[in-house]
């Protein structure tokens, strides 16, 4: 079997297991998978911009929260699940393009701090609005769909996110983004419209974060600004992507899955030990394995191939 056919077969097998799981697996596993899928969407969405262009955005929570708040606004008036998802994604995507105009002129650490600050700003503005203008903090959302519906919608969104990340990377668009990461000045001189490319990928990345936010608002049934715009969401996503690798979609999938499972096993019982360990792991990773787990896996794979080729020769 060729390696391409084998890869496709593995993906088909994973997809089949995922699609049939609710038929026989206990509810706990479905809940666990819902949470893994949410992190996959966010982390894969994150690399479409930050992984490909090298601009590290800490505004994940802003886009996730904005998606959630579209559900808060629309659901009580028009309780249609697909509608709130699409509205949430579009709102975040447009917001990203709007703030991208001024923000994407700034590079390096300043960009990172700016996006984090913006995300916090959006959180406090919505907090002030709820407390001062509306007079009540938080919203309870009732009448959401069943676990199975959440599960299947997240699979569909995750699949679209992954396919998008794949096609963005393997087309002209992706090469343009990678050239911005490698040397923005040279990219511009070679004819890449860097401003437009950065804006488009920033918007695309936020679109998927908005989808996730809109879905999770109904899943969590209660949303207030500290829940929706929680900066921990941003840090988790960033760590997952760096942990797994940011070169293509496989890294964040591995990162999101592994870290969600670890946090499920230890995070609830020993939250502080878990966070501390996560921090140390992240420092070690950035220092010694900047390409993440995926980088280690592909290096091992290449070594195996070379050893195999040498064996064949001798």
């Amino acid at each position: 079997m060729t390696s391409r056919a084998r890869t496709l077969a593995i993906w088909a097998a994973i997809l089949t297991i995922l699609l049939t799981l609710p038929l026989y697996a206990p509810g706990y596993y479905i809940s666990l998978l819902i949470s893994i899928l949410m992190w996959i969407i966010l982390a894969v969405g994150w690399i479409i911009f930050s992984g490909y262009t090298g601009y590290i955005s800490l505004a994940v929570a802003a886009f996730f929260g904005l998606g959630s708040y579209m559900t808060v606004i629309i659901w009580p008036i028009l309780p249609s699940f697909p509608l709130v998802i699409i509205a949430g994604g579009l709102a975040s995507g447009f917001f990203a393009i709007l703030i991208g105009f001024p923000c994407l002129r700034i590079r390096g650490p300043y960009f990172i701090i700016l996006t984090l600050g913006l995300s916090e700003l959006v959180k406090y503005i919505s907090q002030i609005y709820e407390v001062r203008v509306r007079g009540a903090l938080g919203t309870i959302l009732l009448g959401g769909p069943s676990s199975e519906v959440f599960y299947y919608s997240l699979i569909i969104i995750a699949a679209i996110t992954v396919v998008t990340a794949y096609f963005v990377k393997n087309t002209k668009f992706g090469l343009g983004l990678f050239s911005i990461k490698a040397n923005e000045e040279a990219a511009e001189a070679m004819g890449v419209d860097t401003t437009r490319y950065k804006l488009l990928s920033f918007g695309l990345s936020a679109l998927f974060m908005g989808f996730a936010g809109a879905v999770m608002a109904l899943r969590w049934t209660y949303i207030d600004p500290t829940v929706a715009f929680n900066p921990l969401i941003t840090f988790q996503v960033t760590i997952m992507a760096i942990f797994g690798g940011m070169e293509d979609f496989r890294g964040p999938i591995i990162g999101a899955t592994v870290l969600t499972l670890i946090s499920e096993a230890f995070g609830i019982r020993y939250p502080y030990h878990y966070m501390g360990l996560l921090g140390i792991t992240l420092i070690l990773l950035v220092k010694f394995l900047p390409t993440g787990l995926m980088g280690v896996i592909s290096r091992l794979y290449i070594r195996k191939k070379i050893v195999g080729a040498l064996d064949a020769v001798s």
Partner: protein
Amino acid sequence: MRFLEAENVSKHFGGVAALSNVSFHVDKGEIVGLIGPNGAGKTTLFNVICCVYPPDSGIIKLNGSKITGLKPHHICKGGIARTFQITKSFGNMSVRENIMIGSLFGKESHGSLRIAGEESRQLMEFTGLIGKAGIPAGSLISADARRLELARALAAKPEILLLDEVMAGLNPSEVGEAMKLIQRLRNEMGITIFMVEHIMKSVMGVSDRIIVLESGRQIAGGTPKEVSENPAVIEAYLGEVRET
């Protein structure tokens, strides 16, 4: 109508006049050399032409239409490609991908990775990078990095090529090859060349005309012979010229 033309271009950085009232032109099909001592404003002039930053005053025209105020990617799509004095390759991308960027986004920009890959293969052959397609550009030796700069700029299908010290760091036999290559670009591909070069023998050897800058001012212009006999040029270079 001139092909590339600058009128009274000035550029200051703080109190330093990097360019003051520089006017020049390059006709289609010419090879024009731009020389001058270190700090004369040569790279600044290239950056102004490529709209990396705008001039404080003066305008630059390509084919009669004003290009000052555009962005660098417009300039590239308009038919001006450049190489950088300090090579600026896409270090973590392969040699092949580097050249593909030029093909995909340059003057005849298109979306086909297949065509870009094929053009990239041809240019690797043309510039002598065969067998290095998969190597990350950042790990090339200096002569190959220069070749890549040239190949990437050519992939953008320029009408005029700005070469910023493309021969720096090459050994004498490589300089000879580079000179032949530059002449082939003009003679066979019809690309106009505007080049900054420090190696006097080579720039005098290939150029039809030479423009001399010193401290941001244009002090001489003409054929290589006229320029090399010009007293102002000799004075500017006294103790500076290193024959290679």
